[in-house]
């Protein structure tokens, strides 16, 4: 289980998180939604130590992981994979070598074995036929699929997806959604998904948390978001330009 307890974070004078508390249960698919700048990506990066909180605690399976050293975070990061918003593939490597890199670094496998393992991961996202090409040859969507394959190489217990379906065509987005669902159903992987994609939210999420101005507005199953009379939530879900939200 993942627990964010009263997390505060500011960058300079800009207060991004103002006391967010959130729990994610084992095997659950938790979507975090909210307008741009609400603090969604900042919150999830606290789990793997890419951002440290000004105040508050992060607990992973009962162990506090709030302010570890960089070396102490490595075992946590092997358990909690992260797929970044802008894919972050390494430009100088082929897609296959991108996916093989963590395998090569963390498992005692030969280069050939690591590559074979990487090809199997690329097949999960239908990209194995492009294995020997470079990231620059592809658009955002296909790069993002490869980044997902790379994140799964360490067989993580938790995966953070930062806007995994943004910029992807509907068919690929469906493949990604199905993959997230399969990870949870078949392997018990816990997923935190930062997303704006309403189709994914109502199709895949077990629970949805909405942030607004660095605070939690609503936390519950997707059906709750249709039923609630919270004006901020309704404006966001229906994409209305007018309403109480400052966009």
């Amino acid at each position, binding site marked *: 289980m993942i627990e964010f307890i009263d997390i505060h974070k500011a960058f300079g004078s800009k207060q991004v998180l103002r006391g967010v508390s959130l729990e994610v249960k084992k095997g659950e698919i938790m979507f975090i939604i909210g307008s741009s700048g609400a603090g969604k990506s900042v919150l999830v990066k606290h789990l793997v130590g890419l951002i440290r909180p000004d105040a508050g605690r992060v607990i992973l399976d009962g162990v506090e992981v709030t302010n570890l050293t960089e070396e102490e*975070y*490595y*075992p946590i990061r092997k358990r909690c994979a992260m797929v970044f918003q*802008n894919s972050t593939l390494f430009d100088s490597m082929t897609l296959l070598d991108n996916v093989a890199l963590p395998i090569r670094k963390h498992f005692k496998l030969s280069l050939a074995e690591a590559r074979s393992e990487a090809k199997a991961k690329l097949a999960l996202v239908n990209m194995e036929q492009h294995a020997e090409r470079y990231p620059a040859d592809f658009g955002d969507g296909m790069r993002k699929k490869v980044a997902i394959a790379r994140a799964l190489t360490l067989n993580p217990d938790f995966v953070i997806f930062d806007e995994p379906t943004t910029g992807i065509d509907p068919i690929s987005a469906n493949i990604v959604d199905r993959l997230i669902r399969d990870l949870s159903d078949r392997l018990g992987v816990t997923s935190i998904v930062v997303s704006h994609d309403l189709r994914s939210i109502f199709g895949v999420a077990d629970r949805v948390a909405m942030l607004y101005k660095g605070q939690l507005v609503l936390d519950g199953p997707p059906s709750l978001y249709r039923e609630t009379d919270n004006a901020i939530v309704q404006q966001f879900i229906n994409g209305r330009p007018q309403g109480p939200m400052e966009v």
Partner: protein
Amino acid sequence: MQALSPSKLLSRFGAAFMAIALDVGGMAVLLYQILRCLVPPRLDGMETWRNLYKVGVKSAPIVVVTAMLTGAIMVIQSGALVAQFDAFGLLGWGAAFATLREVGPIMIGLMFSGRVGANNTAELGTMKVTDQIDALRALAIDPITYLLVPRFIAIVLMMFLLTIVGDLTALVGGAYTGQVLLGVSPSLFASSVIEYITLEDLFNGLFKAFTFGIAIAVVSSHYGMTTSGGAVGVGRSVNNSVVASAVLIFVLDYFITSILH
């Protein structure tokens, strides 16, 4: 233009001082982190070979051309004086002394800072602003051992080796120019070098090349890893890296020359 008030002037001076202190401190910490990874060696073999090839093999042609012309220029500059005093037997010594001790390491150091250092900063800076460095950390891969140590080894080692290649090439260029312009035979040029140049002259220059290599590697990596602000930030970092490397090369040269002279 309106004159700055004393308090504003003081505040700007303080900000500039803090920025320099942050850079110097950052570079010192980075050098410590890199050296700590060298004993015992913790680095990625494939990445090291890739960098050795990129830094060494790809820099060799430009180093050879520059060094050849530098040797020739040394002879052209000293040619008139040599002819005036009929001191043709000292031509090799003059060219070699200046090249081995000073001009060779400086020229190759500046070349390296412009070609290799700038490239290193741009590559690391782009990785930083596109979250690729964070992606490495998220994959539990240490960016110091994976990215910086291989680059450090490649730059320091290749700076040292290419200075040897450059020194030899500069002497060949000097000997050839001496024959064409002044009619000094290559054997007379070579005997002058062998008779008057000591191993100390060679090692003095190579020691400089070694320290310049460390400076270029640390400065370029520091500015790359602290890049922020997108494409504009990458450009700014590359500019800072080249300027700081060049200044540091001359500062180090001054102190090493003062101490070893």
